[in-house]
């Protein structure tokens, strides 16, 4: 919330200064802003809907249930769940904390957090919109591999 207020103040001040200095340029800036916004809306609506569906169909308890299994296959499954889901940080970290408390291994939790943050399958359509398929595929694929490495190393060190 605080972040939103800061962001609005920042945008308003910048807009005001811009308008004072050059009306024409400011108009152009707003046109650019409006066009990018309009371009984003269809995909954004779809993704928001997907997030809602996901939260309804895969509740926290289901995710928590994945953490009983610490074999490589179990870790991989958790990592895939992390890559596919989109959970905001203010839910993900408390969830991670409660998983650790209830006995999940550090490696599993770390892999879940790193894949969650580094790979975004749900936001991929939006990323494709901006940067293309190849960019999106490689950024996420490399992110997934490195997320597994990071999670693995963290699990070993923090055991």
């Amino acid at each position, binding site marked *: 919330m605080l972040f939103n207020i800061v962001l609005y103040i920042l945008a308003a001040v910048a807009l005001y200064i811009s308008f004072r200095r050059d009306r024409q340029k400011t108009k152009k800036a707003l046109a650019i802003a409006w066009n990018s*916004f309009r371009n*984003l809306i269809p995909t954004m*609506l779809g993704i928001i809907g997907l997030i*809602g569906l996901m939260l*309804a169909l895969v509740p926290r308890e289901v995710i928590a249930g994945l953490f009983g299994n610490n074999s490589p296959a179990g870790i991989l499954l958790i990592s895939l769940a992390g890559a596919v889901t*989109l959970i905001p940080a203010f839910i993900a970290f408390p969830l991670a904390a409660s998983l650790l408390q209830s006995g999940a291994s550090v490696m599993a939790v770390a892999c879940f957090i790193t894949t969650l943050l580094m790979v975004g399958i749900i936001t991929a359509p939006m990323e494709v919109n901006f*940067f293309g398929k190849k960019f999106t595929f*490689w950024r996420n694929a490399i992110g997934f591999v490195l997320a597994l490495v990071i999670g693995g190393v963290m699990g070993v060190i923090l055991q």
Partner: protein
Amino acid sequence: MKTRFRRYALFALVVVADLFLSWQYPARGSVAMKSSLDYLVEMFLFIPPIFVLVGLLDVWVPRQIVEKNVGPDSGVRGVVISILVATAAAGPLYAGFPVADALLRKGCRLANAVIFLGTWATIKIPMLMMEVKFVGLPFALLRLALTLPAIIATGYLVEMILKAGEPGRFAQGAGEKNY
């Protein structure tokens, strides 16, 4: 018109799924729609100022400034700047997409744009603070230390792969797209 219609395909699919869910499993359907509405409100709260800032960046920041600081010849400095700017960000990654896109069109190096997105997604300061609070300092610090090199490596790897391929948006000299 047809492409415009196609862009709503995902949304249409989701609406159908929502309706089906509400019909078959009313409880879950209402959770789905309520979460989506919550998200929609959240998005509309922070997306407009970001786009206004991106628009202003587009008209006021000269290409040379972006090129000099994060452009193809910006080297280590460019990487450091990309990381520092993105750590100050907040909000989900998809809010970072339009910003990175605007930077790319202004001559930002591809690797730096990927590093910027990676930092935004994983180690921005508000997120780290929450991480320390919930899972502790060792976890957060170790993740930070391992994630930084991973983000930088991803940036250079993505750049190598995309530049090596056929001419496209990210081939040498491309990246300028006019509205």
